[in-house]
């Protein structure tokens, strides 16, 4: 047996290489730049530069792309327009979140030193020494890189590796909150155990599918299934377990239970990133798996999609109604949105491939913006300094009077979640639902419409609280409104984007419509 050098189209992989390479370079920066303040600047500059460069490369590739896309390596990865679209979305999320990571308001999102016990002397010493946990930047870069990989990989085992590449940094980032560190640890532990549990389920599914079809390349699985005589139970069980793995990442019921706890416990900047990007990446991968690999099983799997979509929409909505913690409420709203995302999967492929990127873009922008707002509303510590985030709903009463721009932006994000016209969320829902209607799934759409109508109630409850309710006597002094420049930039940029995408969506929709074909490579 002789070794032949594989042909790899490295150029097509450049965006991912840039991001992962910058992550590795960031680790080196950790080693060589000693002063924390300088290190932070260098790391931030490096990360932003890498993300912008990667985005630039993607735009260039998009412009240069003639056909559907490039097969990077046969059977392993394909960079088509769909993947480029998802990568661009993830990079935008990454850029915005990186600004939130770097924001220093309230002392920053991250602890000074992850290894210290909460409340210990070491923690105080680390704070006094002005330490900063700058490892979060390369970790975030690895996460973004892994997610980008996740959108273009076409091999189930490679997918597993990519899944872990973006999950491991996330588990770590969740554990690194600066305040309420017990909650942060708890969230990380739960997220990790359940994440590992679900990836084991996914992996066993891969093994079964491999057993049934002898291949793990998504394109060839599709062909192999068609050639199989009848519905192979091994294949079906494997397919279900694989999809369950993705549904876990999307946060769909009953695989959602990590979502509220991890969202609440994680540092808010990480919650923003996780909420927006994880969902997008998992959706992108699910697109390839559902519409290419398991396309012949569409009928069998539609039950799964329907049941999980309905359960997610109903459960997420109903439980969000009774939440008193803002981060948890947004988390449950995320669960409901996972249901709406799955509604699009019940639709026709072409429509769904346009609707899903748009939906996730709209949802992600609003999510990042909303959590950025959350990070600005703080409790005032007893010594007059700024404390942890004020996440109890009641603490937000009267915010509209104190900070109209902040509350106005939050209201805009909430309206977008609710799918009120003139916001990106409306177009997203409209596209997703019309994809489903075009696929004949109108009963599902009916339930989705009802669920989103009920869901609107808890979004509006918060708006009412911010604008129509006065803060109780003396409560105003206990809340401090931060004014971090970086965070404010993120809030206003996302708010503007949500509005523009709501009023003039056609440009972006056209781009995604161009991306609505999956490049299926067969061979190798």
């Amino acid at each position, binding site marked *: 047996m002789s070794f032949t050098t594989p042909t790899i189209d490295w150029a097509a992989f450049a965006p991912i290489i840039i991001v992962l390479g910058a992550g590795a370079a960031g680790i080196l920066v950790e080693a060589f730049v000693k002063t924390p303040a300088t290190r932070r600047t260098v790391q931030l500059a490096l990360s932003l530069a890498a993300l912008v460069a990667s985005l630039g490369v993607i735009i260039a590739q998009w412009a240069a792309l003639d056909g559907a896309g490039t097969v990077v390596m046969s059977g392993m990865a394909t960079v088509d327009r769909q993947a480029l679209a998802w990568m661009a979305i993830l990079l935008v999320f990454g850029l915005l979140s990186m600004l939130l990571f770097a924001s220093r308001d309230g002392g920053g999102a991250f602890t000074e030193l992850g290894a210290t016990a909460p409340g210990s002397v070491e923690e105080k010493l680390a704070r006094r020494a002005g330490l900063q946990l700058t490892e979060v930047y390369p970790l975030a870069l690895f996460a973004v890189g892994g997610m980008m990989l996740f959108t273009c990989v076409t091999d189930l085992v490679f997918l*597993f590796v990519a899944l872990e590449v973006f999950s491991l940094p996330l588990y770590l980032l969740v554990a690194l909150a600066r305040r309420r560190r017990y909650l942060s640890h708890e969230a990380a532990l*739960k997220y990790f155990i359940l994440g590992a549990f679900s990836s084991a389920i996914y992996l*066993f599914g891969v*093994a079964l599918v491999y057993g049934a079809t002898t291949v793990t390349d998504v394109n060839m699985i599709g062909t192999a299934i068609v050639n199989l005589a009848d519905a192979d139970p091994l294949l079906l069980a494997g397919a279900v377990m694989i999809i369950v793995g993705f549904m876990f990442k999307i946060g769909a019921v009953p695989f959602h239970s990590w979502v509220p706890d991890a969202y609440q416990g994680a540092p808010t900047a990480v919650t923003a990133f996780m909420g927006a990007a994880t969902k997008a990446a998992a959706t992108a991968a699910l697109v390839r798996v559902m519409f290419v690999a398991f396309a012949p099983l569409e009928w069998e799997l539609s039950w799964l999609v329907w049941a999980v979509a309905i359960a997610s929409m109903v459960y997420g909505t109903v439980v969000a109604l009774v939440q008193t913690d803002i981060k948890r409420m947004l988390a449950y709203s995320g669960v409901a949105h996972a249901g709406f995302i799955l509604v699009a999967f019940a639709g026709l492929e072409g429509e769904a491939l346009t609707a899903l990127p748009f939906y996730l873009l709209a949802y992600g922008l609003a999510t990042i913006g909303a959590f950025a707002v959350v990070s600005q509303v703080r409790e005032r510590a007893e010594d007059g300094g700024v404390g942890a985030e004020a996440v109890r709903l009641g603490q937000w009463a009267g915010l509209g009077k104190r900070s109209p721009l902040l509350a106005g932006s939050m209201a805009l994000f909430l309206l977008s979640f609710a799918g009120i016209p003139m916001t990106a969320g409306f177009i997203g829902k409209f596209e997703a639902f019309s994809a489903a209607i075009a696929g004949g799934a109108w009963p599902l759409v009916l339930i989705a419409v009802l669920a989103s109508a009920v869901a609107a109630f808890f979004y509006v409850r918060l708006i009412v609280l911010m604008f129509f309710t006065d803060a109780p006597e003396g409560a105003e002094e206990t809340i401090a409104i931060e004014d971090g420049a970086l965070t404010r930039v993120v809030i206003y940029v996302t708010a503007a984007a949500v509005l523009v995408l709501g009023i003039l969506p056609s440009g972006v929709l056209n781009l995604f419509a161009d991306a609505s074909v999956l490049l299926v490579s067969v061979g190798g």
Partner: protein
Amino acid sequence: MNPMNYVILAAILFSIGAAAVLLRRNAIVAFMGVELMLNAANLALVAFSRIHGELDGQIMAFFVMVVAAAEVVVGLAIIIAVFRARQTISLDEPAELKG
């Protein structure tokens, strides 16, 4: 003998691992359960690799081992961090996030 028996063995090990996650309070033991699940998947992959007469399954199992090793490092680091903060590694005890 048909290597399919190994796949059945893999399924049994997988279930035992899953049961451990559900039943054991000790985070490390639960985590070992997850590792057992990954190993079960590996066993299935290798068995199928033998059945299909090709090496791909083995390669995959190889990757899974690397991934699992990395996962173990991160997971144990988190468990140690929790232990430092709370002096316990019980999965039941940190339950402030709920509802």
